[in-house]
């Protein structure tokens, strides 16, 4: 089937090039038939790439090691769940996933807008097909997932142990969905600029895709953070790693865009700003993809050095130069139709929020690319660490969170003193009460930043709850419904507004979790033998016993720990370190089972108040002697079998004995009280990071969910009727 896969990629490449050409020809010379044909090319591309992706997935699920990518990223012992996800752990597979998702989302966007934005859509199709052709060119000529091996191995290398985590099933597809969905508003913005159709229609047609991109990218980022927290064994969720930052950049500018397009939609303002933002967001999405693949910056998440850097740089260069040229070229058409009515209005709050978000994006970009910038100017690669990021990001995060509370309280156009009184009293009181209450908590103000931040979060939550309450009461007054029904009703009728408010609340909770868990975290690295205890943040943690297990997939050495406070048992933690067999035969027949890659299973007791987190790093030194002895014994036995003709039965018996020996070696870790290294972390409110993320994404879904068409028509008709009556009066 590899031949079919390769052929499908070539067909897809040809279809993408055709779609690009037909759309442009149709837009500028050939008429609707070519435009329609170009749009159908996008649908066809999605179909062909779905087949290609299915061929690749089937190869992984069947452990078909004749595919080079399967042999190097999967094995027969890899669980089926992870075989399916191993496809995108490779450079080749992830490129195919990227372009497949692009084709799916592009098809959806073009199908939904086929009767609208008729002038803009053909150019947008051409832009989307340019991306498609670019990524297909990479998969066909640089990183083909359907390359085969002349002599397939009997066993594959296996999936990188660090990627064997449920979050990894969804993290890359969500990130790539975010990146590819951001290509849609990018492409339509290019189309709008080229055709000079720069008013509200292209924004109305693509804003849902911008929101979907924001949501998917956000979920992808959080899944990555969760993976880092529970898999990487260092106890953190965000390290300002270049690849993490690369995904954050388009998310920040995308957040700004989602807010500022509302101003353009309503007032015809900020057209240059919005065009620049969406073009920057699309470019940053490609930059994020490039960073993971080029190897230009060191990252645990990157694919390592590759030859894909140059084509990506050419694409990014073309995107940057083309975007700037288009905006400058169309600057006359991008003039604002109105001006800001007041500096005290929701428009002004959005504008300030946009400036802060772009400043955040610039800081993240600068810190991420500083190693390259410093190398260019000084010849030395210097990098900045988390303290540098924290120094600039923390104050701006304060401002962003505060604005997310202020925004819902401020009406469009202008804010009056009366509305300040009505809107701000309760949220401000909530902030003051929180700050006052924290004075009563010993040590809470020892670190002023998180304590102050808690008050800001209280302000945001109070403002959102107040808005929900008032919306519910207004609905109750007009519809005579019970409180829950009225709340659901008002939220359903105003999904964008209340979805946005829920997002603000969730995001504030998430950042509170980040602020408190990072500021008041207690961490301790300690070596313990079974029976010994240590104390972390008032918790007594006892190393009860060692554990070991040996399977064909891995050897796991771990520990069971008891956590208590004041003599009262709080939790039992289980942590293991899994050792995966190495393919390096020089490590010996037994040794290679302990010398491959390893991963950690953390012991975690998550709670609303605090997380107690631990990871073990077993010391293998005491096992070195017995492993060496096993290596020698089995090497002699193997030599004997080979000299005797290497019968299959003898080999099978030898491997069975080897497996018993490995299990026995692993069991020594249990039967001997050797010391093991542990890292213990007690983080207050860490769970609220994930709860905040869930609230945020539920709000995103609410905002994204389309209102029923009938309801939309009814509402529009009602307002149309009122304005039409007014119109009739004015023309009489």
């Amino acid at each position, binding site marked *: 089937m590899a031949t079919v896969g390769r052929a499908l990629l070539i067909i897809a490449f040809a279809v993408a090039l*055709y779609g690009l050409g037909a759309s442009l020809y149709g837009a500028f*010379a050939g008429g609707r038939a070519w435009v329609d044909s170009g749009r159908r090319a996008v649908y066809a591309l999605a179909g062909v790439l779905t*087949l290609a992706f299915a061929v690749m997935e089937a190869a992984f699920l069947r452990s078909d090691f004749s595919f080079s990518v399967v042999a190097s990223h999967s094995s027969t012992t890899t669980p089926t769940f992870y075989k399916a996800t191993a496809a995108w752990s490779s450079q080749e597979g992830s490129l195919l996933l990227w372009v497949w998702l692009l084709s799916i989302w592009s098809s959806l966007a073009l199908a939904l807008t086929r009767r609208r934005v008729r002038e803009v859509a053909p150019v947008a199709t051409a832009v989307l097909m340019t991306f498609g052709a670019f990524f297909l060119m990479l998969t066909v000529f640089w990183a083909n997932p359907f390359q085969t091996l002349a002599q397939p191995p009997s066993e594959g290398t296996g999936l990188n142990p660090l990627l064997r985590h449920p979050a990894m099933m969804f993290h890359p597809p969500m990130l790539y969905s975010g990146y590819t969905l951001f290509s849609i508003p990018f492409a339509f913005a290019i189309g709008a600029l080229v055709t000079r159709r720069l008013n509200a229609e292209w924004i109305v047609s693509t804003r849902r895709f911008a929101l979907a991109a924001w949501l998917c990218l956000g979920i992808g980022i959080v899944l990555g953070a969760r993976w880092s927290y529970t898999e990487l064994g260092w106890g953190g969720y965000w390290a300002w790693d270049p690849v993490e930052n690369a995904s954050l950049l388009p998310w920040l500018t995308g957040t700004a865009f989602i807010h500022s397009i509302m101003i353009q939609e309503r007032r015809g303002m900020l057209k240059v700003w919005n065009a620049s933002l969406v073009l920057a967001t699309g470019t940053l999405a490609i930059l994020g993809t490039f960073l993971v693949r080029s190897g230009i910056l060191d990252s645990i998440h990157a694919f390592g050095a590759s030859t894909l850097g140059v084509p990506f740089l050419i694409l990014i260069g073309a995107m940057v130069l083309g975007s700037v040229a288009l905006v400058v070229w169309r600057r006359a058409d991008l003039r604002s139709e109105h001006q800001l009515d007041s500096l005290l209005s929701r428009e002004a709050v959005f504008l300030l929020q946009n400036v802060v978000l772009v400043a955040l994006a610039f800081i993240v970009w600068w810190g991420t690319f500083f190693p390259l910038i410093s190398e260019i100017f000084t010849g030395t690669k210097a990098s900045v660490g988390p303290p540098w990021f924290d120094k600039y990001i923390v104050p701006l995060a304060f401002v962003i969170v505060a604005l997310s509370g202020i925004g819902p309280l401020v009406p469009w156009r202008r804010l009056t003193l009366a509305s300040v009184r009505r809107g701000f009293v309760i949220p401000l009181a909530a902030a003051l009460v929180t700050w006052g209450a924290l004075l009563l908590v010993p040590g809470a103000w020892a670190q002023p930043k998180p304590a102050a931040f808690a008050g800001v979060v209280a302000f945001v939550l109070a403002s959102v709850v107040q808005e929900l309450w008032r919306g519910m009461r*207004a609905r109750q007054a007009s519809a005579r419904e019970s409180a829950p029904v009225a709340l659901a009703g008002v939220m359903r009728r105003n999904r964008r507004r209340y979805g946005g408010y829920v997002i603000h609340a969730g995001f504030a909770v998430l950042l509170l979790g980040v602020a408190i868990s990072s500021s008041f975290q207690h961490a301790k690295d300690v070596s313990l033998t079974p029976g010994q205890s240590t104390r972390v943040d008032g918790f007594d943690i006892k190393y009860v016993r060692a554990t070991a297990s040996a399977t064909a997939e891995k050897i796991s050495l771990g520990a069971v720990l008891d956590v208590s406070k004041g003599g009262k048992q709080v939790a039992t933690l289980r942590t293991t370190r899994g050792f995966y067999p190495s393919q390096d035969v020089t490590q010996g027949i037994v040794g290679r089972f302990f010398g491959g890659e390893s991963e950690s299973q953390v012991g975690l007791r998550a709670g609303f108040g605090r997380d107690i987190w631990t990871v073990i790093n077993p010391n293998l030194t005491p096992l070195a002697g017995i492993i060496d002895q096993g290596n020698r014994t089995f090497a002699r036995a193997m030599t004997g079998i080979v000299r005797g003709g290497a019968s299959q039965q003898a080999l099978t018996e030898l491997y069975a004995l080897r497996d018993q020996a490995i299990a026995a070696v692993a069991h020594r870790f249990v039967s001997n009280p050797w010391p093991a290294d542990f890292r213990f972390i007690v983080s207050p409110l860490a769970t609220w990071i994930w709860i905040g993320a869930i609230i945020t994404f539920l709000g995103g879904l609410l905002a994204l969910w389309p209102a029923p068409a009938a309801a939309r028509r009814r509402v529009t008709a009602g307002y149309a009727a009122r*304005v039409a009556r007014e119109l009739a009066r004015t023309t009489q």
Partner: protein
Amino acid sequence: MDLLIVFAVVLAVVAFVGAPLRGRARGLDPDAAARAELADLEAAKDAKYREIRDAELDQRTGKLSEEDHRALDAELRVEAIALLKRIDVARARLGAAAADASDAPEAATPPSSVG
């Protein structure tokens, strides 16, 4: 077998993508610019209605006083009327002024954003 699958895929793609080109040739739409302008105005009109609706919700949730809301609502309706007039002109230009009843009064009372 592989070759057969590839051949079938190529045939299907060519048939599907080429279908619009086999029909009656449709040249460039001479009214494309006018249609696009009308679509832009319709989108702006919908946005204006949303703005009116949001202002009403702001008033009902106490963010705008009755007086402020009246002033803003009047302002928004003037803008909406200006848009409707421009839509009429655009439709007339397309020769379809009488065709659309989409803005005809359909409801005696405007539905509320909360009710």
